[in-house]
């Protein structure tokens, strides 16, 4: 009887451990069916926005961060769409083209506020968007008056001098 209760205790400990392991932070989600959406927001650089590497997330949007957004998209860093609702959509495909190859057509869309139509997929904490069509484009929001140039070295010294007419 004693041996039985000890074995039962061991099983209980094991079950408890298994329960802890299967807590939400370890649990995976199955891929969900897609949902048709129409989203309005800025085509943006997910790395700088999420990581804080350039400082405040807001400073990585609009004209202040435009050149850096083009660099990151050309470098194959995932392009995002920051929805008006604050949701970061990871854009996997834009009008039939993958977003890792730096295709000029979506480099051209960096920092622009667009209305996009497509399919959304939720998987393991990220929201992915396959953009089928850009419906409208409102252009780039002027954020440089608030944040300056992010990163400050984006415009080379010689180029600054040329723009200001010193060379």
């Amino acid at each position: 009887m004693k041996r039985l209760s000890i074995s039962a205790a061991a099983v209980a400990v094991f079950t408890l451990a298994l329960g802890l392991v299967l807590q939400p932070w370890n649990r995976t989600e199955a891929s969900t069916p897609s949902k048709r959406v129409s989203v309005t927001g800025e085509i943006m650089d997910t790395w700088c926005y999420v990581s804080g590497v350039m400082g405040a997330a807001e400073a990585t949007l609009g004209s202040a961060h435009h050149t850096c957004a083009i660099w990151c998209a050309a470098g194959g860093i995932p392009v995002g769409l920051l929805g008006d609702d604050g949701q970061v959509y990871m854009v996997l495909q834009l009008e039939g083209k993958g977003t890792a190859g730096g295709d000029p057509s979506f480099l051209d869309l960096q920092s622009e506020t667009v209305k996009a139509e497509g399919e959304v997929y939720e998987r393991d904490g990220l929201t992915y968007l396959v953009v089928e069509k850009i419906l409208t484009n409102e252009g780039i929001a002027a954020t440089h008056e608030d944040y300056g140039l992010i990163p400050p070295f984006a415009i080379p010294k010689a180029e600054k001098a040329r723009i200001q007419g010193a060379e």
Partner: protein
Amino acid sequence: MDIKPIATGVVLAIGLMFGGVAQAEESKAKSWNLAGEQKTVLSGKVVDILCELTGDCPANCGDGSRQLGILEANNRLTLAAKNGQANFAGAVADLLPYCGKQVDVDGLMLGETTRLYQVQFIRESGQTDWAKANTFSKAWAAKFPDDAKKKGPWFRKDSRVTALIERDGWLGLGHQADKEFLEWWE
């Protein structure tokens, strides 16, 4: 009293409870002092994220055009957003040679709400030596040999980038906006 069953249970419990922590302790990733940063080793298959979600699966994980990630044995899918280089480079060039293969990756999981992964090291499963995830610049130079001949880092001489700046200016708002901004800001 036979304590073997209890001992076995406790050992199993501790092993299972701290499995994830042990994984973090093994990481050799360098800190970048990023938001929500957590050193993380992952083991799984290199996959095309779009293929995993939609079933649309071109050869060789899209051959560099698609975002890649790691699919672990427990079916958890992690997007690899960045490699180990500090030059605006993603992770696709580093992961693509391993498309469909089982790998270990070492790097940083980061972000507060949206969580992204930075790959710093990669190796095929079963190997002991890690390779640095820093192959973007070489892959870029091979893809754009004419641009690569120019001076400076890749992002200063990439003709896709320079064409846009030449057309729209550094702020994307036209050359007059650049001039007015610099007069005020400098």
